[in-house]
C-alpha cells in the first residue's frame, strides 16, 4: 500500500501521518512487554532505569534477580507446580476435547447447538464467577465432605474444564477441511475404527490438536483467579506467586520471571504460527 502516484500533497501528508499513528499504536502494544526485559537485569532493586543502566555501564547490570529465582524455594516450587498442573490439565482437556470435536463434526449429532453451548460455556462465563462457583462446589461436592479445594486434583480438574473450549474450537475448525472419504477409504480397506483413528484421522488433525492443546496449556499456565480461590499454599503456581509478589513484596525478581515468561510465550507463538501455516497449506490455502 504505497502512496499512489496520483496522490496530492494532502493525501501524501495524511499517508505519512497515518503510518506514524500506526507506529505509535504498535509501540503502545509492544513497549510494555519489551521494557521489562532490560529492567530484569537491573543491579539495583528498583523498577526503573538507573543512571548506570542508561550509560550502559556494565556495573548497572546483573543477573542477581535470576539467581534469586533459582535460590528461592517458593519460586522453584511454583514453577514445578505450574508445569505439573498445566500439563495434567492439558492432557485431560485435549483428550476429551478432541473426542468431542470428532463427535461435533458429525452431521448426525442431535441437539448440536445446545451441546456446543454447554461445551464452550467455561470460556464465556467470567472467570471470577467460574472461580467462585467452583470454590463453593469443590469444597463440598454434592454435599459430601470429600473436599477438592486445596488439592492438586481440584486445581487440575478446574483448569481442564476452563481449557476444553479452546481444544473443541480449534479441533472443530481443523475438521472443517477434513475429507470424510479418507475414513471411508480406510474402512473399505479393512481398518477398524481404532486403526482408522490413529493411522488416518490423527496424523491429519494433529496440528489442530497440538494448537488446541497449547491454548489449553496457556489457559492453565496463565490462570490465577481459580488458583487464588481454590489452591492452598502447596499448589501455588507462577501467576499466583507473581500476584503475591505484586501485592505484597514487590521486587525485581518478578521482572526476571516476567522475562522468562515472555521467552516462553514467544516460543509458543512461533509454534502455533508454524502449525497454523502447515494446516492452511494442507488445506490448499497458500500465501
Amino acid at each position, binding site marked *: 500500500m504505497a502512496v499512489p502516484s496520483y496522490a496530492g500533497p494532502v493525501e501524501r501528508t495524511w499517508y505519512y501521518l497515518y503510518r506514524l499513528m500506526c507506529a505509535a499504536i504498535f509501540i503502545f502494544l509492544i513497549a510494555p512487554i519489551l521494557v521489562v526485559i532490560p529492567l530484569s537485569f537491573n543491579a539495583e532493586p528498583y523498577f526503573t532505569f538507573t543512571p548506570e543502566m542508561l550509560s550502559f555501564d556494565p556495573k548497572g547490570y546483573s543477573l542477581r534477580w535470576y539467581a534469586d529465582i533459582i535460590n528461592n524455594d517458593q519460586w522453584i516450587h511454583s514453577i514445578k507446580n505450574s508445569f505439573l498442573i498445566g500439563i495434567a490439565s492439558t492432557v485431560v482437556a485435549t483428550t476429551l476435547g478432541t473426542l468431542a470435536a470428532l*463427535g461435533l463434526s458429525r452431521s*448426525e449429532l442431535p441437539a448440536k447447538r445446545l451441546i456446543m453451548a454447554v461445551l464452550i460455556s467455561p470460556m*464465556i462465563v467470567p472467570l471470577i464467577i467460574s472461580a467462585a462457583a467452583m470454590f463453593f462446589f469443590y469444597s463440598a461436592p454434592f454435599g459430601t465432605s470429600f473436599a477438592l479445594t486445596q488439592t492438586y486434583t481440584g486445581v487440575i480438574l478446574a483448569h481442564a474444564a476452563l481449557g476444553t473450549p479452546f481444544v473443541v474450537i480449534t479441533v472443530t475448525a481443523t475438521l472443517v477441511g477434513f475429507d470424510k472419504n479418507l475414513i471411508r477409504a480406510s474402512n473399505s480397506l479393512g481398518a477398524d475404527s481404532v486403526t482408522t483413528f490413529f493411522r488416518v484421522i490423527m496424523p491429519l488433525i494433529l496440528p489442530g490438536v497440538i494448537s488446541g492443546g497449547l491454548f489449553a496449556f496457556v489457559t492453565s499456565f496463565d490462570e490465577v483467579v481459580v488458583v487464588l480461590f481454590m489452591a492452598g499454599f502447596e499448589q501455588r503456581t507462577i501467576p499466583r506467586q507473581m500476584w503475591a509478589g505484586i501485592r505484597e513484596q514487590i521486587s525485581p525478581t518478578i521482572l526476571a520471571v516476567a522475562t522468562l515468561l515472555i521467552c516462553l510465550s514467544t516460543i509458543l507463538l512461533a509454534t502455533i504460527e508454524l502449525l497454523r501455516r502447515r494446516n492452511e497449506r494442507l488445506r490448499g490455502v497458500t500465501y
Partner: protein
Amino acid sequence: MAQMTETADRILTTADGTPLKQALARATRRNKIRAFILVAPLLAFVLVSFIIPIVDMLARSVDNPEVQAAIPETVALLKDWDGTGLPPEPVFAALAKELSDKSKRSEIGRMGARLNYEDSGFRSLLNKSQRRADKVTSGPYKEGMIAIDADWGKTSVWKTIQLTAPSTTFSYYLNALDRTYDENGNIVMQPEWKQIYVHLFVKTIYVSLGVRIACLLLSYPIAYLLATLPASKGNLLLILVLLPFWTSLLVRTTSWIVLLQTNGVINDTLVWIGIINDANRIEMIYNMTGTIIAMTHILMPFMVLPLYSVMKTISPNYMRAARSLGANPLVAFVRVYMPQTIPGVGAGSILVFILAIGYYITPALVGGQDGQLISNFIAYHMQKSLNWGLAAALGAILLAGVLALYWLYDRIVGVDNMKLG
C-alpha cells in the same frame, strides 16, 4: 413409493433381507449414538465440573437456611403472629429454650451473621442473649428476654426475624441492587451510605464501554494497515499484536506498573526531559486511569483480530471503484469501506465488552481504590466479608448480563465462526 410398499415382494431390501427403510433408520440411529458417545465424556465432564457448580452457586443466591436451622420452633410459632405489638408469650418461651440450647451454638452464630446483613446489631444481640438465655428458665419469658436486651421488646426486631425466616429469599438480590425489605416486607431503597452496587454496575458498564471504544479507536487503524499490507510484511507486523496476546496477563500488568508508577519509567522520562518537575509526578496507576490503560492494552488483540479477519476479505476494488467514480479518499473510506467492516466492529466490540465487564485481575492489581469493578466486589464478598449469598447474587446478575451479550454475539457472528489466533 406408496405403490411399492403395497406389494410385499417389491419392497427394497438389503442383502440379508431387512427392508431398506428399516436398515437405514437403524444405521442413522447407530451413527447418532456413535456421534453422541464421542461427545459424551466431555459433556459429562463439563456438566459435573462446571455447569453444576454454576447452578449450585445460583441456588446459593436465594438459599436462606440460617434462621430456620437455628430456631425452628420459634419460627414455626412466629408464623401466626400478625406483626403488631409483640409476639405472644409462647414465642418468647420457645426462643429462650432454643437460644439456651448449647448444641446449636454454631447455628445461632450463623443466624446472627445472616440477620446482621439485614440490620447490623443482630449479631451482638444474639451473642448476648445466647450467653444469658439459660437464666430465663421460667415465665414470664417475655419480661425475661427483654431484661436480657431491650431489643427483644422492639416490634421491628421480631418482624425482621419473621421476614428472614423462610428458607428461600430474594434479599441478596435486593441487596445487590441497593434495595432491601423494610420491616413490613416492602421493597425500599437502602440507606444512602449503603448504596454502592447499582453505582458499581453502572461504573463497570461505563468502564467496559470506555475500554471498548479505546480498543476500537486504536485497533481500527492497525487492523486496516495489517489487512492492506502485502502478506509478508503484514504477517510480520501481526506478530506485534499476537505477542502481547500470548504473553501472561500478570506479566503485562506488571509491565504497566513498571511503566506508570510514580517512580516508574514514564514519570522518570518526563522528569528527565523536563516536562514535569520531580515534585509533581503524575499519578497514573492505582486509580481508574491505570485500570483503563492496562485493560485497553490487554484486550486490544481481541479487537484487532476480528477486525483484521473481516478487513482481509474486503476487496480493494470497491475503494478503487469509488475513487474512479470521483469520491475523494475520505468519502470513499467512510461510505464504501467502513460499512463493510461493521461485522468485524460488532464482533470485536462485543467480545471486548464481555471480557471487560467480568475483569478481575487487572483492576485488583492496578485499580487502587476507585478503579475497582464489580468482579472485585464479588471476590471481596467471597474472601473477606464471607457474605457468600451476596457474592452469588452479584455473580448471577453479572452472569445474566454476559449471557445476554453472548446471545447477541451469537446472533451477529455465530459461535461457530469464532476463531482463535
